[in-house]
């Protein structure tokens, strides 16, 4: 039965709603302007730039080594992965050979970082949907990774560990022992996560068939990462354009079937298992030797260079134009969340506000990365 207010408003009672910039489910300073019809979001307009720091300009005014800390401050959940792309770019441009041991250490720490990022992604996602317990378990496991990485890199979140030519510090036996312990621990915890979340009927009802992405939409928006792979497209830069030493490891690219929010969640869960496999293989094959090449000051030749890596949220490209000095003439950073957020207006047109939270959360956005 229509209430008195509804009768007064009649059929035309659309209104504008601001979701954010401070909204718990945007996980950062993102504002989405919604045109609502009752509980349905009819039009969406994301507003970006609240956390814009102009990293690309900062790169143009300092020598390349001065930009290492910046890379970690874009995607604060996958900082090592962002550093990986940047040092890879410098090495490709300046022709620096990286010692074998350093490459293995990079893969191990990068995959650990990917797992910790996915744990936050999954934990926070389920929290958005109203389940409070899983994030506590996820943070417990993530804490182990942060401890392992803190001992070796000196920081817990915004790592500045990779250098052009290697890594800043060698790993020790304690690191290896703790990492192996973590692999066992995490493998034992996976069934618990599946019991707690994957098989949870409320979670299934909330995420199945919500936020469907197909191949056509992925191409038009340039989607990558788990958001893409949930739709059954096995595109992973680690496989398609192998960088570092990823071609030496045996791992699979998990994909979903339906391209809905549930599949994107499941892909992240499976990727944790695959990352554990990579870390285990890298630890087994870890060679001895130096961890830093003897490099002179990096000079960037005139010309352009692109370096693409698989960050936690998808394909990350650094594109640099050099002018023969040690300072980039132009550095473009193509971040995955930027493209992954862009289909939101098309993805969520006409759905319930609560489903909008589901669909947006399944994109696993990191807003400082989008704003740069």
């Amino acid at each position: 039965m229509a209430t008195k207010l509804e009768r007064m408003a009649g059929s035309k009672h659309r209104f504008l709603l601001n979701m954010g910039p401070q909204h718990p489910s945007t996980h950062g300073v993102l504002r989405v302007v919604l045109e609502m019809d009752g509980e349905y979001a009819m039009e969406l307009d994301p507003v970006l730039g609240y956390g814009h720091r102009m990293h690309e300009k900062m790169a143009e005014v300092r020598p390349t080594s001065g930009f290492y800390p910046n890379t970690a401050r874009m995607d604060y959940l996958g900082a090592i992965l962002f550093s990986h792309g940047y040092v890879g770019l410098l090495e490709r441009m300046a022709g620096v050979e990286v010692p074998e041991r350093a490459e293995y250490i990079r893969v191990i720490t990068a995959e650990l970082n990917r797992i910790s990022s996915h744990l936050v992604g999954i934990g926070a996602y389920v929290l958005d949907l109203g389940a409070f317990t899983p994030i506590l378990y996820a943070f417990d496991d993530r804490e182990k990774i942060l401890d392992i990485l803190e001992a070796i890199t000196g920081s817990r979140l915004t790592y500045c560990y990779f250098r052009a030519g290697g890594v800043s510090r060698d790993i020790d036996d304690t690191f290896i022992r703790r990492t192996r312990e973590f692999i066992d621990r995490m493998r034992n915890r996976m069934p618990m996560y599946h019991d707690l979340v994957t098989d949870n009927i409320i979670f299934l009802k909330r995420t199945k068939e919500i936020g469907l992405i197909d191949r056509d939409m992925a191409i038009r928006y340039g989607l990558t990462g788990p958001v893409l792979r949930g739709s059954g497209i096995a595109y992973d830069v680690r496989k398609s354009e192998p960088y570092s030493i990823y071609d030496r490891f045996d791992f699979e690219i998990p994909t979903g079937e339906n391209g809905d929010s549930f599949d994107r969640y499941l892909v992240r869960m499976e990727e944790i298992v695959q990352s554990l496999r990579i870390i285990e293989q890298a630890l087994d094959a870890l060679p001895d030797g130096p961890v830093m090449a003897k490099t002179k000051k990096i000079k960037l030749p005139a010309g352009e260079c692109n370096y693409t890596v698989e960050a936690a949220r998808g394909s990350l490209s650094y594109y640099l134009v050099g002018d023969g000095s040690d300072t980039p003439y132009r550095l473009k950073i193509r971040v995955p969340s930027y493209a992954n957020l862009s289909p939101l207006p098309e993805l969520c047109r006409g759905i319930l506000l609560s489903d909008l939270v589901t669909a947006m959360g399944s994109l696993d956005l990191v807003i400082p990365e989008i704003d740069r």
Partner: protein
Amino acid sequence: MKSSEAILKLMEAGFQAESVDVNGVGYHVRAHVDAEQVRSFAQWLLAQGFFIDFLTAVDASPRIQMIYQFAHYDHPCRINARVPLPDSGAIDTISDIYQGADWHERETRDFFGVHFSGHHNLVPLILCDEDKDLKPLLKKEGDRKSLEEIGWADVPAAD
């Protein structure tokens, strides 16, 4: 599509393309596209199943260079195209072909002041309203390098 196949098809479709060392520059195919061709270039890429990686600009003299990069989900084939911006400071939008280009174009307008003709909503994206004409990534006079100085002089002239 392999990169050699992509080059052949690009040439057939009337674009200039060459193979480059992927370990040197990080992409497989370099395409030379005129400003009038960007829309047909984007339509061709969409028909071949390429996804948009990014779109940006580089400020150099005598004119700004637009950079378009595309890649493919099924094959390692990354295509990079550099397009000199016409003197009018405007270039056709591709945001109706690749919807993902919408934000990249708005960002390029923010940072470089490039106008995208036909864009449905060319308003500031990253910068706030007060700074919408700041164009922070344009080089100051004196800092702007020529194409020779940034290694881009060897490109053949389009016929």
